[in-house]
């Protein structure tokens, strides 16, 4: 199977957690085992849009029990006899092969012929940054052998790109260092934030230079964080910034 597989490297590795849990989009070629009337096919596909129940496949990394997943959209791109090309946007952890075989149960059988992932969270196949392993090896060669970093800087993007889909809280310079030491973020350290955050939401905590400090859970809503001067704003779950990048605030 092909398509986009964002890879985080070195100190950025743990950021993949925010991509594992992000929505995905696939283009899939499904082969039906019987000739099906187009109207009936569209009806059944529509049944598999929205909340669906899915039993993870035998060979999967999760416990094998029926679980609910959301198919955000299901668009049939083309029908050619028993071959059906469709695009689906799905919640993380939705098995497309299983989705196809479940559709098949209602239509006299179907299997997945090909699958291509076209979005993984904020990454998509058409954002101009897609690179093959071959491109990566070439870029490395240009960098190491010829001292030309133009390609490697195109292929490898800053870790912050991986939090583009996560709501953000920006903090003051003086609040950075204590977060790097594992302390929670207090209200006075917040410089600005995005609207629409609810208590418990995953947030990215950024410096005013748009560097990621950590990601974690919001301890309150956007409205409260904006107004309050006391209490917790967020708790970090994974810290990315190295200690000592920003100075400790001056003792008063």
């Amino acid at each position: 199977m092909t398509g986009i597989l964002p890879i985080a490297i070195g100190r950025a590795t743990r950021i993949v957690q925010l991509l594992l849990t992000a929505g995905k989009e696939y283009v899939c070629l499904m082969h039906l085992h019987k000739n099906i009337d187009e109207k009936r096919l569209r009806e059944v596909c529509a049944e598999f849009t929205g909340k669906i129940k899915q039993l993870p496949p035998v060979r999967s990394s999760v416990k094998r029990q029926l679980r609910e997943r959301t198919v955000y959209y299901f668009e049939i791109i083309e029908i050619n006899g028993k071959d059906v090309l469709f695009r689906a946007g799905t919640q993380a952890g939705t098995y497309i092969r299983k989705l196809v075989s479940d559709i098949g149960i209602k239509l006299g059988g179907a299997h997945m012929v090909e699958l291509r992932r076209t979005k993984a969270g904020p990454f998509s196949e058409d954002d101009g940054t897609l690179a093959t392993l071959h491109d990566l090896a070439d870029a490395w060669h240009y960098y190491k052998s010829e001292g030309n970093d133009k390609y490697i800087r195109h292929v490898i993007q800053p870790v912050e790109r991986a939090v583009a889909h996560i709501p953000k809280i920006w903090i003051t310079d003086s609040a950075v260092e204590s977060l790097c030491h594992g302390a929670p973020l207090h209200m006075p350290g917040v410089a600005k934030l995005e609207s629409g955050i609810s208590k418990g939401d995953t947030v990215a905590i950024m410096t005013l230079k748009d560097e990621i400090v950590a990601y974690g859970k919001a301890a309150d809503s956007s409205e409260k964080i904006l107004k309050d001067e006391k209490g917790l704003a967020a708790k970090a779950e994974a810290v990315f910034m190295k200690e000592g990048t920003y100075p400790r605030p001056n003792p008063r």
Partner: protein
Amino acid sequence: MEKLTLRMRGGDSVNENLLPFEKEKRSVLVKRKDAITSDKHGCRPEDRKTEDLINYGIINLEKQAGPTSHQVTSYARDILHVKKAGHSGTLE
């Protein structure tokens, strides 16, 4: 069928479908109008040195058929001579 397979790459259909986060419209709420950041510390992500980027970056990798997601990840790690790498969910 060959035609269909080819069209898996982009194709000529316009994709107007959006994932939930792509539909969210967030605005920035300013709590401290006077907050500024010093140039003495930190570095804007786009200005990061190449050697730092290589050990602290993300690749939008096009996985080709054949190797597993795990194998592809370890190839990328080896190419860049970094100690760790991780992928964003298997694609088998």
